[in-house]
């Protein structure tokens, strides 16, 4: 019998641990990754020639980052590694990948999707101005290119990343004008009982905040942001306007803003594979259905890491192992020695409790999104305003997101709704007067990311398949 063909998409914490375990079991998995080097976003490596040490790059997580990098690099020829490669479609039991002008069809017996997450954005008025970044992008600028997004930066949003990135900027010597958290002041206490599941992580968070306070950074909670302001020429970020309790407005001057409201799962491949999705009320987003080990509803598809559940990097490493063990079990192959599935599952459950606590402590401000002014640009790819999106519901009678997309073009552009889909659903739901889960979710459509027309199939059988 030929060796089973197992593909891992993503070389971050989940993908690395999955590949490691599959290789230890004697398989030679194919690892497809968009990145130039392994590590994913959280443990992104600096470009060649950059010489910052791990402690500078990854702070308290330096040990984990270097361990993960070492594991991946140690896999060598035990895996078939395809870096800088886009996984753009799934069809007929094969993954379709592309690198430069080469398109390939990779048939699989098991596909492990570990594609991570991106920032969950709110399209505040002014969010497309030069100088406005997502928190993740602000962090990448620092980690990969060793530069700040501005000389005086406001961080706005909610979630642990808000404080982490702010503290990384302070440590790097950037001026942080303010950290503006939209979570109500009392929310943290609501999340505390669940977050107590991971006391060490909770303590790390407290230390971060203490460091920011010591550095004299302005920190506000319960912030109601109004808009990102432009300079006189209208060409760059000049400040962030927030509501004051008396109904007025306060402006915090800055030349760059990093924004993000926790994360959203990169779940397009799971969608293209035909996986079922469920609405997760805690994080207010649709997530692909998976059992406790990561088996999706579609046969042969496994999900691990933030692309399935936002558990963070440590949780992703565990989820990667669990999913790999599930692959081996379903293929009828023995697990490598020393794997304690029950213990991994217990750890994962603890992390899931923490995840739900975070969602309570740093809630998604649905009301703020639903009430964005009509002139706000919601879909930045296609330049569609909140007003036009609402009109597709109120005047053209679209009952849910996909119909609103068909009428208004919201979510039809290059990003395929990655950045506007979640906010768009809140706007559609409010305009329709239904709960957000009734507004549905944008159906995934290939390609996962833009695919060059120059791409050529290098496999003659590919063309044969279309006859």
């Amino acid at each position, binding site marked *: 019998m030929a060796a089973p063909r197992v593909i891992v998409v993503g070389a971050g914490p989940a993908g690395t641990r999955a590949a490691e375990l599959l290789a230890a079991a004697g398989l030679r998995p194919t690892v497809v990754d968009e990145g130039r080097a392994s590590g994913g976003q959280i443990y992104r490596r600096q470009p060649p020639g950059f010489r910052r040490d791990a402690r500078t790059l990854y702070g308290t997580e330096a040990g984990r980052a270097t361990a993960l990098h070492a594991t991946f690099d140690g896999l060598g020829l035990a895996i078939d590694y395809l870096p800088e490669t886009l996984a753009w479609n799934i069809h*007929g039991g094969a993954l379709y990948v592309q690198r430069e002008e080469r*398109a390939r069809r990779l048939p699989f017996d098991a596909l492990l999707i570990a594609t991570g997450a991106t920032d969950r954005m709110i399209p505040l008025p002014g969010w497309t101005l030069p100088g406005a970044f997502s928190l993740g992008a602000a962090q990448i600028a620092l980690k990969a290119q060793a530069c700040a997004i501005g000389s005086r930066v406001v961080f706005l949003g909610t979630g642990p990343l808000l404080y982490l990135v702010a503290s990384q900027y302070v440590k790097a010597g950037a001026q942080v004008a303010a950290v503006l958290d939209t979570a109500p002041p009392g929310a943290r206490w609501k999340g505390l009982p669940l977050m107590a599941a991971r006391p060490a992580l909770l303590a790390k968070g407290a230390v971060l905040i203490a460091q920011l306070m010591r550095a004299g950074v302005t920190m506000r909670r319960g912030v109601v942001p109004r808009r990102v302001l432009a300079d006189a020429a209208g060409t760059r970020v000049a400040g962030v306007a927030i509501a004051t309790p008396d109904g007025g407005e306060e402006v915090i001057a800055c030349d760059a803003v990093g924004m993000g409201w926790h994360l959203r799962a990169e779940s397009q491949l799971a969608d293209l594979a035909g996986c079922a999705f469920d609405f997760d009320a805690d994080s207010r987003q649709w997530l692909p259905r998976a059992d406790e080990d990561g088996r999706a509803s579609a046969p042969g598809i496994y999900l691990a890491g933030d692309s399935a559940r936002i558990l963070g990097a440590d949780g992703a490493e565990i989820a990667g192992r669990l999913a790999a063990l599930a692959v081996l079990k379903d293929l009828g192959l023995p697990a490598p020695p020393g794997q304690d599935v029950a213990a991994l599952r217990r750890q994962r459950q603890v992390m899931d409790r923490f995840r739900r606590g975070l969602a309570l402590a740093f809630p998604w401000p649905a009301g703020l999104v639903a009430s964005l002014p009509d002139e706000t640009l919601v879909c930045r790819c296609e330049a569609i305003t909140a007003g036009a999106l609402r009109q597709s519901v109120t005047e053209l009678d679209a009952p849910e997101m996909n119909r609103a997309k068909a009428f208004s073009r919201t979510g039809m552009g290059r990003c395929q709704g990655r950045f506007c889909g979640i906010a768009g659903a809140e706007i559609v739901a409010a305009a329709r007067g239904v709960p957000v889960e009734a507004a549905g979710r944008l159906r995934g459509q290939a390609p996962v990311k833009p*695919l060059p027309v120059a791409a050529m199939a290098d496999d003659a059988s590919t063309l044969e*398949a*279309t006859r």
Partner: protein
Amino acid sequence: MSENRADVLILGGGLMGAATAFFLRQRGLSVILLERRLVGQQASGINFGNVRRQGRFLPQLPLANRSRAIWGRLPELLGEDVEFLPSGHLRVAYTPEAVATMESYRDGARPYGLDLELLSGNAVRDRFPWLSPEVMAGSYSPHDGHANPRLAAPAFARAARRAGARIEEGAEVLHIEHEGGGYRLDTADGRVWRAPVLQVSAGAWGGRIAARLGEPVPMVVRGPQMGVTEAVPYALLPVLGVTTKEIREVLYLRQVKRGNIVFGGTGHGPAELDAPPHRANPDITLHQFTQLRRMVPALGALRIIRTWSGIEGYMHDEIPVMGPSAKWPGLFYAFGFCGAGFQIGPGVGDVMAELIATGSTTTPIEPFHIGRFA
């Protein structure tokens, strides 16, 4: 239950049904349209958007001409813009045989009032310099063009509703019965609908319904293969197509004014009546890339951002079913448009309304009669 009674019941809310509802109201008949899901969501919404007459089965040209005239008046008729752009339609040929086919089609189309301009390879590249050297000739139809299929059928339905039609979305018909010289339809929600006249315009599902009414037709369903590029400056004015007998060369593309280039062709995927739509087949997407580069080499510098498929009904003879039933009085059909219904949709609605309201039509539609399969 008098409120669920009308002069005409329309089964199926695609472009054909929605346009028929609109034109029936213009003729003063009361009409109820029953759509299982949402108006214009199937073939009417996912098709390429071609408003093309050239290349059609010649006896269909009178209908296509009538429809083309309506396309030009849609903003005033519907009070909405469906992005109709009469920017011309160009078919290219890669072989001498295809050039000969074009010449004979041009001669055949002329008596129907469709004037096509044949341009040799150099002349066609002088006018459209982005065409590849491989193009041997082009057949240009200056008054054809394209429109937005996502908008057209819903716009007809809204205009029909404003004119007094009842458009019932989410109304799944479970039973059809003859009753008292007319038709009784039962929907899944328990409601009952009655009318002396029934039009079946259920697209890919039309064959199944006709069979239930005792008029089986030879029909298959297929999934068109579509894609769209990122937006680039508006430069490709005419809709493009290929004259060929080889399905793998059949590519069509159009650039919308905002800049994206929509394309399709080179093969079909599967489709099913009782399952959600399939997605586009990536092997076909990649093959379309070779044909895109072949026709307009500069397209090799672009990226695509979306693909889709859906379901279309094809008759075995590639000719739609349109006109009265061969079996039952008061029953009419308009379905099975073989992947080429979008352009003639408004005309089909106008003709069907005329036929239902007056008993005849000034546009010849005999070749499309369901009786040909009896």
